[in-house]
């Protein structure tokens, strides 16, 4: 499946009542979910039917435990957003675009935070809960592991 074909399928589905499409062609499988808030498009290229649709994993949210008793005194209820899979981390949609989110910015639930590219697919990672960005933990363009913290937020 190439990007053009994917785009064409998405164009056809726009404005329809379709909320989910499962499409299989030989080794290729495509799962689309439409609706609000827009769920990330997940596509798997040439994956055997038995393989899990790993790319639809939601990002992980981990409460951050205070590092020491001293830190515990200072209120720390910050949390991290962790990478849902191994891939390459991008803070913007393209090198010419601004970062999806900057330090100090407040994000809403479902807002796109970054992209993790895996197997040539750009996967948008969304906020699972609202928060204010304290720190971006990964350099743009760096590889990330499964479960690796990407951002630190504080609740709002």
């Amino acid at each position: 499946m190439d990007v053009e074909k994917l785009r064409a399928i998405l164009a056809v589905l726009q404005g329809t009542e379709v909320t989910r499409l499962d499409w299989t062609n030989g080794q290729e499988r495509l799962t689309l979910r439409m609706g609000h808030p827009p769920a990330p498009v997940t596509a798997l290229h040439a994956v055997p039917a038995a393989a899990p649709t790993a790319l639809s994993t939601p990002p992980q949210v981990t409460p951050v435990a205070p590092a020491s008793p001293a830190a515990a005194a200072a209120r720390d209820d910050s949390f991290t957003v962790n990478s849902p899979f191994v891939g390459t981390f991008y803070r913007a949609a393209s090198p010419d675009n601004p970062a999806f989110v900057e330090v100090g910015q407040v994000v809403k639930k479902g807002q796109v935070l970054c992209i993790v590219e895996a197997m040539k697919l750009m996967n948008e990672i969304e906020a699972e809960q609202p928060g204010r960005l304290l720190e971006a933990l990964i350099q743009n363009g760096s590889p990330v592991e499964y479960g690796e913290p990407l951002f630190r937020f504080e609740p709002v």
Partner: protein
Amino acid sequence: MFHKILIANRAEIALRIIRAARELGIQTVAVHSTADANSLHVKFADESLCIGPPPSKESYLNIPAILSAAEVSGADAIHPGYGFLSENAEFAEMVQHAGLGWIGPRPEMIRMMGNKVRAKEAMREAGLPQLPGSDGVVRDDRDLVRLAEKVGFPVILKAAAGGGGRGMKIVREKDQLAQMYRTASAEALAAFGNGDMYVERYVERPRHIEIQIVADEHGDVVHFGERECSVQRRHQKMLEESPSPALNEKLRERMGRVAVEAMKKVRYNNVGTIEFLLDERGEFFFMEMNTRIQVEHPVTESVTGIDLLKEQIRLAAGEELGRTQKSIALRGHAIELRINAEDPITFAPSPGLITAYHAPGGLGVRVDSIAHEQYRVLPFYDSMVAKMIVTADSRPAAIMRARRALQEYVVEGIKTNIPFHKRLLLFEPFVQGRYDTRTVERLLAETSPPAGG
């Protein structure tokens, strides 16, 4: 030659691949689940990437994550080890389509051998002997009698839809045939919804003998002798040895020759293992082929003196075999014992924290393992903790060495099958070399475990 190999596996085989790669001057990338973050294969690799949560389906079997890890790490080849994705032809194809080297046989070989029916057909055409039997389903009583006489008694009736020993009947006399067939067919119909039966020669005392194949990408094939894997419980191998006490020089030469000829005919590449069933009369029959490195490869390394993993990697990179069959000689005797985290009596898995650990050593003792004190045997993966391989000049000396080494082996905090192995190494049929795939059953039935384990 490859520059950087990603290892799509875990535990001892991942460490084994790291050792081979390092000796070849190749970098390694370990991938791991969150549960294996502190595992030795992760620590000893040049790089590591966490690819998913503990369940294998989401980590070691997660094809997109593994290919993505290969991409971000800049690996140029993938070694699948054994188990997991090692015999997944689709994965092998995707690795090759991604422009990466696949350290294993071509996907078409994996696919052919992965289908039991196709594998048997292909190997029959390639000249490997097969267990006499009906090629298809038995049509009726008269058909059955004709087939059974052709096959030769005793015969076994097997349900076409069966498995795991269900729907099977052994028939020793012709006049029992019709009655047993009706019973077995009715049972199969009740159990599987299909009463179709086929008939095969029944081997009373089968031995599991396998031939190690090593082939390059240019059509050259040799064998590295045999391994005997008849010490099994419920089709799980527990101990392997090379050479087999059941083979003489003539039989070894014949089995090796037909195996190599068959592999040349199908243009097999890389390493693989052909499993044969050997009967009491010295007749052998093709069972199946494993298109990957085997758990028990170290016994072959011990008697040939050749590093099979290094061989596998260099052949996958396209190097020529550069060995003649004549140059491969088996020297001495090697025995491998699989040390599992399991109850030595009930064989129930026993995962948990290893609180004390001491591996045996000394001349001729090799331990392939990632276990250590404070290592946790995880419930998510298989229960093998270590492989202990002993090598000596002769089989009796190797057995003595194995007994001695087990005396030094300390694993506390979890249960292991070490007490079982101690009993096995004293069990007369094993010591005499007169054993078969049902010997473990007899050992467990005849002898009682020593008091105090």
